[in-house]
Each structure stands twice: as structure tokens, then as C-alpha cells.
């Protein structure tokens, strides 16, 4: 394995019954960059996220994070190693307040945790709603809360599953600049996103999945002009 990779996925496969969700898929991420993972619906993007974060077990293949094999670890230990994620279908804790949603994941002492949690809530403009039950927030606000929650873990690699979905244009611009800030801080970000403008604006490298297989990878300009990607993704 190359020493300068933060994440390396080597030939992983995942089957659900007779359906192959991911087939011998490989990718490598260098630290401090923003990557995107795109593909049509059902191409295996979220399954690949689940495999990386330990939510699902690989049927074959290996996953390394900072040179350490992680594909046999439970999800919480993978998070402790430094991988944080959000979910395609929002998974905030609805009967906890916005503030508690952040506090619950912190591993710092209580007072510094409270301070940091308030900073992150302010960052996503939810500070006025810190005492509100997360289940009472709007869809977009819940999406932002989930983003703030993953920041609270302070991971080195952040996996964002459709971060722009349901977020209004103003908040989206804040979100995009926040993602760029993360890169400036040396974090690595891997995004699954359907909004091609977001993908092309943010990403330094794009991976394209189709039917669970890695179809292409490269810079946004390369992907944009890749005929196979156009056929698989846009049907022309």
C-alpha cells in the first residue's frame, strides 16, 4: 500500500442475496483533498460507504485506513480511528435536542464539549434552535445538524452522503464553504452527491460507480468528457 494514502479500498465486494451491490471495487484517497463518488441510483455508492464505516461487512476485499486494516472492526471503532459519516436518509436522534445530538457523540470532557457543540451549531446557523428536539427541525436543518454532528467527532476522513439534498441555496453555499474549510484544515472529504454542480465545483477527483463496479476515476474535467460515464450516468 502506498504510504501517503489515508484510505485504500482493495477489491471489495458485497452481495445481498443474489444481488451484487458492490463488485471488486477499489479506490484510494490521498489526505487533505475532496473526492466525490457518483453513479446512477443503485450503483452501490451508499453500500460502499457502509462497507468503509463497518455498517456492512465486506464479502471479499480489504479496506485500510492510514495503513491499518479496518474491514473487520465494528463501526464505533472505525469512527474512533478517525472516519465520520452522514447518512443518505437523515439519521439524527429525534427525541434529543440539537445540542444533545452533538454532545452525545463527543469524547471530550463535558464543558469543552458544550463549548464546541455550540460553536458547531452556530457554524451551521442552528444555535437559536439548540434546545429544540431534532425531530422538530426541518429536513434541511436536520441535514445541517447531521453535518455538525460529524464535525463534533473531529474525524480525519469525512464521508458525506448527499449533503446538499434538501438544503436551501443560501445554506448550501455555507455548507460548501464549510466543506472547503475542512480541506483547508487538512481533512479528507468523500462526497456522494447527485447535484453535479456541487460535485464539479468541490471535487478534486471523482470516482464513478456503475452496477457496483468502478467505471472511471479522474479529475472533474476528465470525467465530464468520459464517454462511458456519460452513457452510464446520463444515458447518452
Amino acid at each position: 500500500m502506498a504510504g501517503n494514502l489515508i484510505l485504500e479500498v482493495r477489491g471489495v465486494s458485497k452481495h445481498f442475496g443474489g444481488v451484487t451491490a458492490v463488485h471488486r471495487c477499489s479506490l484510494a484517497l490521498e489526505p487533505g483533498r475532496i473526492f466525490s463518488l457518483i453513479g446512477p441510483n443503485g450503483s452501490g455508492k451508499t453500500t460502499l460507504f457502509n462497507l468503509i464505516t463497518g455498517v456492512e461487512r465486506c464479502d471479499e476485499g480489504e479496506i485500510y485506513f492510514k495503513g491499518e486494516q479496518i474491514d473487520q472492526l465494528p463501526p464505533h471503532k472505525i469512527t474512533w480511528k478517525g472516519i465520520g459519516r452522514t447518512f443518505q436518509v437523515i439519521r439524527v436522534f429525534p427525541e434529543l435536542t440539537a445540542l444533545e445530538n452533538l454532545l452525545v457523540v463527543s469524547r471530550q470532557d463535558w464543558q469543552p464539549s458544550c463549548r464546541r457543540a455550540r460553536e458547531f451549531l452556530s457554524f451551521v446557523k442552528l444555535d437559536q434552535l439548540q434546545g429544540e428536539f431534532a425531530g422538530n427541525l426541518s429536513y434541511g436543518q436536520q441535514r445541517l445538524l447531521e453535518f455538525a454532528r460529524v464535525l463534533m467527532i473531529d474525524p480525519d476522513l469525512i464521508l458525506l452522503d448527499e449533503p446538499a439534498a434538501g438544503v436551501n441555496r443560501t445554506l448550501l453555499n455555507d455548507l460548501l464553504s464549510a466543506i472547503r474549510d475542512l480541506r483547508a484544515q487538512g481533512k479528507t472529504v468523500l462526497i456522494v452527491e447527485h447535484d453535479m454542480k456541487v460535485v464539479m465545483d468541490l471535487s478534486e477527483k471523482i470516482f464513478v460507480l456503475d452496477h457496483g463496479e468502478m467505471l472511471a476515476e479522474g479529475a472533474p474535467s476528465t470525467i465530464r468528457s468520459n464517454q462511458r460515464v456519460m452513457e452510464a450516468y446520463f444515458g447518452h
Partner: protein
Amino acid sequence: MKRLAWAIALPIVAGLAVMPFYVSNYITTFTIQTFMWIALAESWNIISGLTGYVSFGHVSFFGTGAYTAAILISKAGWHWFPAALTGSVTAASLALIIGYPCLRLKGPYFAISMLGLNEVVRALVSYFDSLTGGGSGITLSTMSSISPLYYSMGGVALAGWFITYWILTSRFGLRLLSIREDELAAEAMGINTAALKLYAFLISAALPGIVGGFYARYVSHIEPLGTFPLLTTITMIVMCLFGGRGTIFGPILGATLLSILQELVWTRFLFLHEAIFGAIIIFVILLMPRGILGVLQQRYRLPRTI
């Protein structure tokens, strides 16, 4: 808010402390039973109210504690108090053995496995008759005064309140609630859900263990059918749900109100009281799934520490 809570709680605790000196034996006996239900509802709340893992086998911990205490008193000549404390240790040990595999099960599968545990423990108690007396059970000598049991049972109920308060005002409690809300998300956020569920389960089993020990001493005779009835588990569940699951005072409120109601109904409608109790269960589940405090909490934005 905190001062108001203390202003209400302190006179009640002080009043209960001197109560046996001024009331009839009937009232003292009734209060012991209410303390018992409070402690049992609190114990169920810790695992099921906070983590969402519905336990239908909590009476097995109660029965384990009762039999441990009764055996130690009758066969080893122990004083009933340390015998009851040992009951909590055996109940927690049982929870450790059964919790490790069963807490991996989710939803109805966990509930069913706990029902099975109850049957297994009851069958084992009946089988080892040289130790447990089999179907005939164990008879203990009658106590000259029930006051020590009154304070002991009250102490366990109070301890249950303190433990729930400590859990719900700590990050441990928040993490248990996150398991109830979305276990997969909690695990993916770095929360070791398996360990936390097991800790909660152990605490939750230790309380009915000690209550069972006091109960054995209180009734002076225990046998398998009367010590492991499913109705005991159902009652603690209903009391907790009625008061408000996942709250601090909910189990106390639910157990107190329903104990009074049960007593009133039982004395007036001897053959109907179980049907009326069943109707209350349906009412709570249909109209007030959050319980009294859960509804007040949401409607008036009351803090979690009620």
C-alpha cells in the same frame, strides 16, 4: 426548577420516613408494595425506557433475587438484609450471562428471548427442588415487625430514583437514549452500543434482584408460580409507560397512581380488577404512548430531568 423539585420531594420523603409511626399496618403494607412497584418500574425504565430494548423477562431477575435471599436465609442462616443484597448480585450475574448474547437481538426478538428467560429460570427453580423446595417453595419465619422492610424497600425505591437521575443527567444517559433513537446511527457516531446496553442491563437487573430479596422476606413464602408471574413484568411495564418512559419521575408517578388505582379497584371489583387493569394498558398505549410526564414534557417543553 431544581429548587421546586427539592421543595416538593423533601417533605414527601420526610413524611414517608415518619409515616409508619402514625398510620395503620394496612397503609404501611400498602406503601411497601408501592415502593416495590416503584423500584421495579424504575428498573425496567433503565433498560427499556432509555435504550428501547423492551424486556418482558424482568420478573426473572426479581425471582432470582427472591430465591437467592430465601435460600441464604433458610439454608445458610443469613440475615435477610445481606441476603437480599446478594440477590441483586445473582440477578446482575444472570443479566451478564443472558445480556451478552440477547442484547444483540433487536426489537421483538429481544422481547421474546426475555420471555423465554423467564420460563427457563422458573423451570430451573422447580427442577432443583432440594435447594429451592420445588413446587412447594420455601417458607421463612414470620417477621415481628414490618418497619425494617418498609425502610429497606423505600430505600431501594429512592436508590432507583438516584440512579435514574444520575444516568439521565450524564453522557451515559444521553448515549442510552441515542440507542433508543437510532442504534445504527449511534454506533456509526462512535458510541459503543453493545457495552452501554450491557451496563444498563446489569443496573436494571440488580434493582429487581434486591427488591425480590426483600419481597421474599416480606411474604415469608415463595414458590415458582407466584414468584415468576408474567403479570409482574407487565405491571412494571404499564406503570413505567403510564408515568412516562425515559423520565426520572415517570416510573414513580406511574407506580404510585396505578398502585392506588389497583388497590381501589381490587377492593371494590374483586373479579373485574384485572380486566380494568387491561383496559388501562390499552388506554395508555393508544392515547398516551409517552405517558403522563412524556406528554407534559413535550407540550410544555419541560427538561429531560423530570
